[in-house]
């Protein structure tokens, strides 16, 4: 008889051979839990992430921008759907996942607890927040769990489009009036550091990292991804003609990378633990939408049941 060890060995061997783990395959309970935590956190981030940008749908400055923003926020709802479905393959329902979000048990990306104050924040979110998300997500297209990897491939295509849209908003404004450029600079000042925090704690301080890398749930460490993001973003900021708010940001010839200043980890911890500028508002908005939708969902199931019994009756 095979023992658990040999199951585990075969599982790890599959991963080492770059084969995908599928929903029906044996997997260690901890792997399943890690994935549920990570994918649902990602799904919740898409859904909560609709709120700060959704704020500006009614106020977008042109019809072209309004349509692009509507479509973008709608894409995020779509991403949430794929990711909830991917999580469901691990044996947990969407309802349970949503309950975990609403009770505060599940987390979502802290970046969405910052407020959108001006139109250029929409550009900055596209450029920096989606830019940082893509860094993570491109790596996740090769993650070891098949349904997650496939969802990420679809999502990445749309995200890179969003990032270009965001950058285009900023570029148009930077080519505009001094007031517009000032608005962009202010947005970037506010979104730069929270975007760097999106990669999570430093590797030395990241509780789940080592195991996730071994399982190839993660392919690159938090610090590696953060460095890639900084390296990619600095030249784009130069094209915009804006200054990134870090006096220590400087190209390091010997490393071949940009050096950058220390993240305010205390702010990071505060926002993660619920004390960010909009944590309460974001969660309240989600809970409100869900509760106000109760009667709608109940009616839809009651109607579906009625139709089912009618069609059964007509068959009989």
């Amino acid at each position, binding site marked *: 008889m095979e023992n658990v060890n040999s199951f585990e060995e075969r599982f790890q061997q599959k991963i080492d051979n770059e084969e995908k783990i599928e929903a029906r395959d044996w997997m260690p309970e901890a792997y399943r839990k890690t994935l549920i935590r990570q994918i649902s956190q990602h799904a919740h981030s898409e*859904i909560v992430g*609709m*709120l700060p940008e*959704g704020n500006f*749908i*009614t*106020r*977008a*400055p*042109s*019809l*072209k*921008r*309004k*349509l692009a923003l*509507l*479509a973008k*926020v*709608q894409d995020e*709802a*779509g991403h*949430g*759907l794929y990711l*909830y479905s991917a999580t469901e393959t691990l044996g947990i329902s969407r309802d349970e996942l949503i309950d975990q979000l609403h009770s505060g048990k599940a987390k979502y990306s802290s970046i969405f607890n910052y407020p959108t104050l001006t*139109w250029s924040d929409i550009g900055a979110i596209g450029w920096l927040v989606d830019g940082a998300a893509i860094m993570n997500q491109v790596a996740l297209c090769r993650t070891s769990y098949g349904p997650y990897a496939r969802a990420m491939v679809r999502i990445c295509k749309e995200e890179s489009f969003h990032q270009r849209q965001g950058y285009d*908003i900023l570029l*148009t*404004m930077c*080519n*505009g*009036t001094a*007031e*517009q450029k000032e608005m962009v600079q202010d947005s970037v000042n506010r979104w730069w550091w929270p975007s760097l925090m999106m990669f999570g704690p430093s590797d030395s301080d990241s509780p789940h990292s080592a195991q996730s890398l071994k399982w190839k749930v993660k392919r690159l460490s938090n610090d590696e991804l953060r460095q890639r993001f900084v390296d990619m973003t600095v030249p784009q900021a130069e094209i915009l003609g804006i200054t990134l708010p870090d006096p220590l940001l400087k190209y390091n010839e010997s490393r071949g990378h940009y050096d950058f200043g220390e993240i305010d980890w205390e702010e990071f911890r505060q926002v993660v633990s619920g004390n960010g500028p909009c944590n309460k508002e974001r969660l309240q*908005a989600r809970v*409100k*939408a*869900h509760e*106000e*939708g109760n*009667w*709608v*969902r*109940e*009616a*839809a199931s*009651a*109607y579906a049941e*009625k139709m089912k019994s009618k069609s059964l009756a007509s068959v009989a």
Partner: protein
Amino acid sequence: MENQLRDYILMMADNVMILGQRLGEWCGHGPVLEQDIAITNIALDLIGEARNYYQYLGETEGKKEDEYPMKRDVRAFKNILLTEVPNGHWGDTIMRQCMFDCYHYYLLEGMTTSKNERLAAIAKKSIKEATYHLAFSGEWVIRLGDGTEESHQKMQQSLDDLMPYFNEMFIPESYEIWCHEQNIAPSSEVVRSSANEKFNAILTQATLQMPEKYYSKKGGKSGLHTENLGFILADMQYLQRSYPGVDW
């Protein structure tokens, strides 16, 4: 371009612009993720249709499309009052949508044979979308009307509240009569008859009762709006008004 045609195009455009703007408020707040996506789709279609009309006017008058939604004040808007009614709960939004879709669908159907080729082309494109909108809102009215006791009561209340805005859609302004006489627009009577028949069929399936008495409001088509429109425009126009003359 004749003033009557201009007014007619503005009415068509403002209807879908303002309703699309209202539906955009739902994005991120829908009762179910799938419905959030669906209502946003309708918003996208409607605002897309509005752009087609505004671009047509803009080309004729040498203006940018955004001038029309962003630079006019309340009294210059010609949308029907129904489109500016606040979203309310999901059932209110669905009832408002179904009423509008019954009107919009048959109006576009009539416009596909318009003598004005540009309007005919817009109608041919938009009617495909309107077909889906009507199917969606009609199904939801039926589902909620014939769902639970609570949903039935809510939908009956939505119907009672919104019926005062229904008839305005079919009471023609002088510019609509002119456009019909020129074979540019369908007859309001024909649209009324088809839309009524469709709407009543949906209500019957939804087990909802048309209120016995209600007072019909009107005025939107000639620029006499509810107080709601000022707030919609304040939101929609804020950046264009705060920073005039710049590109975004």
